[in-house]
Structures are given as C-alpha cells and as structure tokens.
C-alpha cells in the first residue's frame, strides 16, 4: 500500500530498527510490511561494521535487555530518582506552601531558600509541593495514555483486518488534530478542575503518537514464527498479546512511557499557564502562572519564576537521558556506529591504520576537522 510506505517511514524514525530478539535470533527477512530494513541471514553473518564481532555486544538473555552503564544512564537515573525523592520527601520538611505570614517578594536567604512570592508564600515550599503535584499529574496522565496506546496500538497491530483499519483511523485522526486546542476545548466546559481531571484530559489527548509506533511494531511481530506457532496451538488472542508480543516490546513501551510523562508535565504546565490547570493544587505549572500573574517579571523576582521552569526542564532532561539509554538498547546502530567511528579514530592516532600512515597526514586532525582522510569512507 502506498500509504503504508509513508506510515512505515513515520514509524521508522521513532521506533526501533529491529526488535531485540530479532537481531539476535531471527536473521530471516521480515515480512514486507515491517518497517525495518531487510537483513538476510547472510548479511548478518559476514557484514562489515554493524554486526561486528560481538566482543562488547556479547550479552545473553536478560542482560541483553538491560542498558549498559553509560554516563547518560547514570546521570539520567540520578536526576530522575533525585527529583522523585524530592517530590515525596521534601514536602514533609518545609513550611506550609500557603502560609502567607512571610514578607512578600523576599529574595533567597537562609530563612527562605528561594525567597517568597507576592503573597508571601515560601517559594521553596511551593516548589516541593509543586513537585509532588506535577509528578502525580505526569504519572496518571502517562498511565492513561499508555493504556490507550496499548489498545489502539498493539491490539490494532496484532488483530489486523478491519478492526485494525477502524482503530488506526481513530489513531490517525487523534494524531493530526492539534493537542493543546483540543485540550482547551474540553477543559473550558468544566467549571472546576481537579488534578485528576487535568491528568485525565492530558491522558486522553496524547496517546496517539505512541500508538502509531506500537502498532507498526506489533504488526511486524505478528508475522513472526513464534506468534504463528502460538496461534496454531490455540492460544487465545489476549494471551498471545500479553505473553508473546508485549515482552518484546517492553523497552519500547518503557521509552514511550517516559516520553508520555515528560509530555504530560509540560502539557500541564502549559494548561496551567493559560488558566486551565488544576484549581486548588500546586504544581510547577501553577507556580509559573502565579509568578506571571503576580508580575514577577517586572518586579525582578527571578527566584519565583525561574526555579519551577528549571525543575521541569531538569526532570525532563533526566527522563530524556533514560530514554536515550533505552534507545541505544533498542537500536544498536545508534550506539555502535558512533562508538565504532570513535574507536577507529583512536586507532588511527595510535598509528594502527596503515592507510593513515601511507598518506602522511601531518598532524592528527583536530576532532571535528574535516580531512580527506575522514571523507574516503563515510564514518571511517
């Protein structure tokens, strides 16, 4: 289908090139619908470069699924876990965020680590409670979004046929309709909005992206031998999806979940900023809105509006780094190719490469400088 080519390209960017077990075991060409490049067993066996002798990539079984301990992973985990702890522990130790007895617009000091707001609230306390609020919204919204994308994605991809067509149409429509306006149209009619309602609205409007990716992966897995075997053996659809297909998509699901959390937190901040956020709760988003409304800008009270934004960014950054680590498991090319190029550069500088010696390049080229040496073979 001509249309499928476009969808394949779409999913190709976001999804993994080859699902995990595939790369190791099933070297056979995928069915035509699959988004991954056809890699025949022969290519796998003696390819130069990508499937380089698995000295470093030799991990077996479950270990293959776990991310290698890279700087990105460690930093990501530290940030994410740190902020999560902050969100749930710090509120117990700070001042009541709505205690207005303090002086207004105080800059940061020993008493008030991040100063006070226009109404005299302690910014640091607000930040701590806001963390809890934002994270809750993020979590709930992400869960809702993932469940929906599971149905519209994996189920649709696996079932195929007209139920797939039907579900896909829904997904594509939701994909194209711009998210924020849709959220606004729904939220405007609600007289008062709880944290839960905001999370709900965020969740039901943001599942489409993940659904597309999950669907294309499920579709390709549908054609695998072990799935066909399960079907022939009479296993029920539900069980096949849960037991055979989902485990292979777990890294992908994890990455999508983390993305959903970031998007939900950002979305909630946006909604809060325009006045459609949760009434009565404190989140980082409501803090930004309050600071804007309270003229923090013109009063020069940077300590009020800078921290919540930074926290959102930091948390998002942490989750993104985790996502990167997961990405590199799913798509080994992303990790191997740059690493491979780097190790060759190192070898060259050590004089190992005879082609480099023969050419008598005067001094080792500075990293990033383009020399003919770099250009002979792409990535060499």
């Amino acid at each position, binding site marked *: 289908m*001509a249309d499928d080519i476009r969808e394949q390209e779409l999913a190709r960017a*976001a999804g993994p090139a080859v699902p995990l077990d595939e790369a190791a075991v099933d070297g056979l060409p995928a069915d035509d619908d699959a988004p991954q490049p056809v890699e025949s067993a022969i290519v796998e066996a003696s390819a130069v470069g990508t499937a380089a002798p698995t000295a470093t990539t030799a991990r077996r079984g479950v270990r293959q699924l776990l991310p290698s301990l890279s700087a990105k992973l460690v930093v990501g985990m530290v940030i994410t876990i740190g902020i999560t702890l902050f969100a749930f522990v710090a509120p117990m130790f700070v001042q009541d965020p709505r205690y207005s007895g303090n002086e207004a617009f105080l800059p940061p000091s020993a008493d008030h680590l991040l100063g006070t707001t226009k109404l005299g609230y302690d910014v640091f306390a607000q930040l701590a409670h806001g963390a809890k609020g934002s994270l809750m919204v993020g979590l709930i919204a992400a869960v809702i979004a993932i469940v929906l994308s599971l149905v519209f994605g994996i189920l649709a991809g696996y079932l195929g046929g007209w139920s797939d067509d039907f579900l896909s149409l829904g997904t594509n429509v939701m994909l194209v309709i711009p998210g924020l306006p849709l959220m606004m149209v729904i939220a405007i009619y609600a007289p008062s909005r709880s944290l839960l309602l905001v999370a709900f609205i965020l969740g039901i409007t943001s599942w489409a992206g993940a659904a597309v990716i999950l669907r294309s992966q499920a579709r390709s897995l549908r054609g695998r031998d072990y799935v066909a075997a399960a079907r022939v053996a009479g296993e029920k659809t539900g069980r096949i999806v849960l037991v055979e297909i989902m485990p292979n998509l777990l890294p992908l699901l994890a990455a999508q979940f983390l993305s959903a959390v970031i998007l939900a937190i950002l979305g909630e901040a946006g909604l809060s900023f325009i006045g459609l956020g949760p009434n009565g709760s404190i989140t980082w988003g409501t803090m930004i809105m309050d600071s804007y409304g309270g003229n923090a800008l013109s009063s020069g009270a940077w300590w009020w509006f800078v921290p919540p934004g930074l926290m959102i960014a930091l948390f*998002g950054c942490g989750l993104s780094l985790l996502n*990167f680590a997961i990405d590199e498991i799913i798509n080994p*090319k992303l990790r191997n190719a*740059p690493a491979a190029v780097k190790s060759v550069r190192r070898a060259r500088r050590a004089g190992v490469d005879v082609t480099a010696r023969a050419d008598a390049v005067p001094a080792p080229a500075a*990293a*990033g400088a383009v020399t003919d040496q770099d*250009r002979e073979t792409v990535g060499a």
Partner: protein
Amino acid sequence: MKYYARRIAFYAFTLWATISLNFLIPRLMPGDPADIMLAKMARNGEVAPGVEKTIRLLLGADTDQSMWDQYVAYWGNILRGDLGVSVTKFPTPVTELIGAALPWSIGLLGLATIISFVLGVGIGAIVGWRRGTWVDHLIPASTLLQSLPYFWVALVLVYVMSVNNSWFPRIGGYDVFTFDGPELTWAFVGSVVYHGFLPALVVVISSFGGWLLGMRNMMVSTLSEDYVTTAEAKGLRTSRIFMTYAVRNAALPSIAGFGIALAFVVAGAIIMEQVFSYPGLGKLMITAVQGNDFALMQGLFLVITITVLVATFLMDVVYGFIDPRTRSNG
C-alpha cells in the same frame, strides 16, 4: 494518484470528526453551557433571536429537537459560515474575530516553523553524518533545551531582553502607538518584523530540537544502509552521497511526521502569543478561555485544526514527490 486521493479522504474525515467533536463536547459536559453563555451575553446587551438560536445550536439546548436534527442544523450553520457570536467581544461575530487574527498567526507560525524545520533537519543531518565526534555529546545537552517549557523560555527571554534591556519589544504585533492599523508600508512591515522577532525566536528554540534529534538518528541509521556503502564504492563525490543517498532517505520520516510535530509548534505558539500579547489566534483562544467564550472557542478550534490539516497536506504532497514508492499502485 491513489496516494493523494487517500490523503484527501483522510483529511476530509478528520474535518468531519473535528466538527462533530465540537458538536458533542459541550453536550457531554455537565451543566448547560448554552444558558451560561446566553446569560453572559444578555448582560452586555440585547441578544437577537437569531443569535440565540445559533448559540443553542452550537452548545446544546434542552429543546425537544432530537440530537440528529440539532446535528444537521449545526452543519447547516457551519457551511453557511455562521460560527456564532463572541461573548467577550460582544456582539462581534466569531468569524470576523478569527479573520482578523488569522494572518498574524499564520505569518509568525509559518515563518517560525519553516526556519525551525530547516535548521533542525539541516543541523541534524550534519551531526548525524559526522558521528563519533564531540558534536555527539551535545545531544544529551540538547535534551535539556527540549524539556524547557517553551513559555517559560519566553518569560526568561522577555525578562532578559526587554525588561532589563529594551532591545526588543515586549508586546504586540506592531507598534500600536505609531500605527492605527495594518497598512501597506515598509515602516509597518519593519515594525511587524521587529515585534515578531522574539516570539518567533522562542518558537524556533523550543521546536527545532525535536527535528534535530530525529534527523540525526535517522542519518546514523541510514549511513549503515547498503546503498550508501554502494555509493561510496562507486567513488561518488561526498556531497552527492550526503544529499542524494543519505539525506534524501533520512529526511523522509521527518517529513512524514511533520503534521504531528506541527501540533507541538501550535501548542507552543498559542502560549507564546499570550506572553507577548501577540494579536494572533492563540491570544484569541486564551481570551476565549478566560472569558468562557464557548462559541469563540469552538470556532478557533475548527480554524486551527483546518490550518494544521492544510499544512500537513502540503507536506504530504512534498513527501509524495520525494518518495517514489508512494506513486506506485498499491
């Protein structure tokens, strides 16, 4: 041809879905939005019976008209171009308000999106091409940039640039003190550009990272494809390999996904217009929200969606050109 036909059919269906959503949502929510709106309007002046009828159609009424009849009548209104009357700017019709704001948004957004796309895809291609260099280390740093809430970036920019140092104007689409209204003079255009600079900058900053990352990943994947190895073996010039073999293939997902990415740009732009008081659709939308102006809200939702659909379709056309696989039959 089948490709284009399918895309058009899809967009037509989405349009129908949007209009239907507009119809359904107020009727699904608790309370009676129509009454609320009419009460508000009554406070501002006499409400013409025609207007009242339209409002009831838009938002649902407790008349004995069946849902289906209401639906049909609703469609009738839409096709006639009657989107109701605004409550916050009573009694201006919604279409007029939208018409005034539309060019501003399209101008700002259109330009910013194009710049963002070109920048993101371009830099992403270069970074992906030269993998294994120090540039790769910038990627994680860019995730920090990506995670910043765009309007917060706007606030910081505004703070730095215009409150402290008045380099760039803080508000407005053009200098309201010098010009009464839009005019066709270079001075006016200059003022527009001057005022549009900061908002455009924020939109670009907050969205180009996504395209950059996507393109970079695609480049890395594409460079390990067989046809790129073949191209090198053929002794082709590096520039040709880069453009025709690598970029042309790696860019496909970015173009295919343009419509989705556009949704994020739209979201960012809405809030941008609020921060900078830019007279576009976004600001209008926020005014509608803050004033519970349901009719205006619905109208804006419709128009914004249509704009996004058109832009996405244009990108689909581009995609159809570049990827010959779409042109084969089935």
